[in-house]
């Protein structure tokens, strides 16, 4: 069952397009990763979908969920969906929480708005939520302020607030980027566990292919405001076909094997004001031909179930030399 259907979503800031038509379906219960570098549009996609961009952003296309369109529906539609059906958590939990209100009050506010709970019932539910996300001594810590929690615990509090509305879909925008690797692993485990219990779907936005691979069923790779490759986790990690996806894998140093020189992607991400005419990745791509500089490849379904936007993809037989990945 499709929970959210995004069609031709476009965003422009001051006449400069940054998102060039995204099509993406999220089904109930699944975990979809959105990967890419800064400015590729992975966060903007969901900020636009949930009406969280500044007023100067021009948004077109449709984001359908529960029979309504979030782009054209306006504030009233957004408020029934946002925080209830679709919740979102962000990279920096300490700035997403209100510093001058106790965390219990902030969770209770979400419970009142989305589930009509008040007073003792809201407090009891807030304690059970904090307990659920692994905050020890929840009943006492309900009355603390955000600065009295560590970064990892603040992210747990944010997750508790997001769960307060019993969402069908959680958008997690770089939720572990600001955290230590050990705490990142704990938060990823918590998100996976919560999903297993509640059956909610999740969109996991990250620049870290490792973290995405750890939790996601399906992955969409974005570059310069477009999806360039989309596949299930196993085929994508076993054999990335878009030269950009492949380049991302090759650029990551390894924790095992020889300490060889890294293979960076040359050049930098294009300026949105000045995107190349054909494929936006062509100036950085070793496989590019003159066709790539003039024509833009569309995202087309492939025989193995993935979608790919490339005239000269990496041959399917060339597996990434990462022995033992699926051992």
């Amino acid at each position: 069952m499709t929970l959210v259907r995004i069609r031709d979503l476009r965003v422009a800031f001051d006449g400069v397009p940054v998102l060039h038509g995204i099509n993406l379906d999220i089904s109930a219960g699944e975990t979809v990763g959105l990967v890419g570098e800064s400015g590729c549009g992975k966060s903007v996609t969901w900020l636009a979908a949930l009406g969280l961009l500044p007023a100067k952003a021009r948004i077109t296309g449709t984001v359908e969920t529960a029979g309504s369109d979030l782009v054209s529906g306006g504030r009233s539609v957004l408020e029934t969906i946002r925080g209830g059906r679709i919740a979102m958590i962000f990279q920096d939990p300490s700035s997403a929480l209100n510093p001058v209100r106790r965390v219990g009050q902030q969770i209770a506010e979400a419970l009142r708005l989305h589930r009509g709970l008040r007073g003792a019932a809201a407090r009891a539910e807030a304690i059970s939520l904090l307990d659920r996300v692994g905050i020890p001594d929840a009943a006492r810590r309900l009355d603390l302020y955000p600065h009295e929690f560590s970064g990892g615990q603040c992210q747990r509090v944010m997750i508790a607030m997001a769960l307060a509305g019993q969402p069908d879909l959680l958008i997690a925008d770089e939720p572990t980027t600001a955290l230590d690797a050990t705490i990142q692993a704990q938060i990823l485990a918590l998100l996976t566990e919560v999903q297993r219990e509640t059956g909610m779907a999740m969109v996991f936005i990250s620049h870290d292919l490792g973290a995405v691979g750890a939790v996601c069923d399906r992955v969409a790779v974005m570059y310069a405001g477009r999806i360039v490759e989309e596949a299930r986790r196993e085929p994508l990690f076993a054999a990335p076909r878009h030269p950009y996806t492949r380049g991302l894998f090759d650029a990551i140093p390894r924790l095992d094997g020889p300490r060889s020189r890294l293979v960076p992607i040359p050049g930098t991400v294009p300026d949105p004001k000045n995107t190349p005419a054909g494929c936006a990745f062509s100036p950085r791509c070793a496989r590019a031909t003159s066709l790539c500089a003039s024509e833009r490849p569309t995202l087309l379904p492939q025989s193995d179930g993935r979608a790919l936007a490339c005239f000269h993809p990496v041959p399917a037989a060339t597996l990434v030399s990462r022995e033992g990945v699926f051992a």
Partner: protein
Amino acid sequence: MMLLEAHGLVRTYLTRKSMFTPPEAVRAVDGVDLVLAPGEALGLVGESGSGKSTLGRMLLGIDPPDAGEIRFNGAPMPALGTASWRKLRAQMQMVFQDPLAALDRRLPIAEQIAEPLAIHGIGTASERNDRARSLMAQVGLRVDQAGRFPHELSGGQRQRVVIARALATSPRLLVCDEPVSALDVSIQAQVVNLLRDLQDRHGIAMVFISHDLKVVRNICDRVAVMYLGRIVEEASSDDIFSSPRHPYTRALAASVPIPGARLDPSTLLQGEPPNPARRPEGCAFHPRCTLMRPGCAGAVPRLLPTTPTRRSACPVVAA
């Protein structure tokens, strides 16, 4: 002779929770011994609050130790701010995480790269200008970008400017504090390769501080793992993550997601790093440790050689 030797380094900060409570002493660095050979790259890893950044600043003499001693090139580190310390700074430079904050927004980049030469009175104005251009070429910047301002460059290019500036006085030691953490993966690989090349070409010794174990392993010859102000394990970068001995190193290595592999909840490290002001008795790691024995809460374990190339501070795995 070792380029850098540190013995028994301690750095204590006083913090207070409010105006009315007495200050608490926080030992950010708590008895660190380390050596660095000329041209060697040493990685410092650990969670936030482990004291790795404080230790990096101490090694340059920017943060004076409360106890212990640092010797650079065989001689004691001169006191912060003295003329001899300033003179020595030409031989030891630092690269920070955020290049935009480390650069002057109102100065063209070539002038910033040449500035250390002017400060140390090296060369004439035109020689300094030539040197700045040659440094720009070395770090992969185009010479026609000399008149650009930091805001006109990308994040990766700015970090190249910071590295060129650090190299201007031909230092023998470079302390890099999370130099690639703010960069995108593809750009990060470019800067990592640049640092490796510069090290090979000029034989600069490097202390590389990062929370990213994969990057540290790629750049460094040797790695020291820190927990709450102490080194708990030290070994060659080939060995330390492939066969970690100390339970904390094991947990750190296991927390790094491998692209394509599902999360394995059984290897998760429980809990968070304790508040350095309330350091657990004995081995500071014992409340989170899966191998904890009754004796672990007693004496602080010493960092002892377990093999000729490895030091570990865990009596349980040493036994």
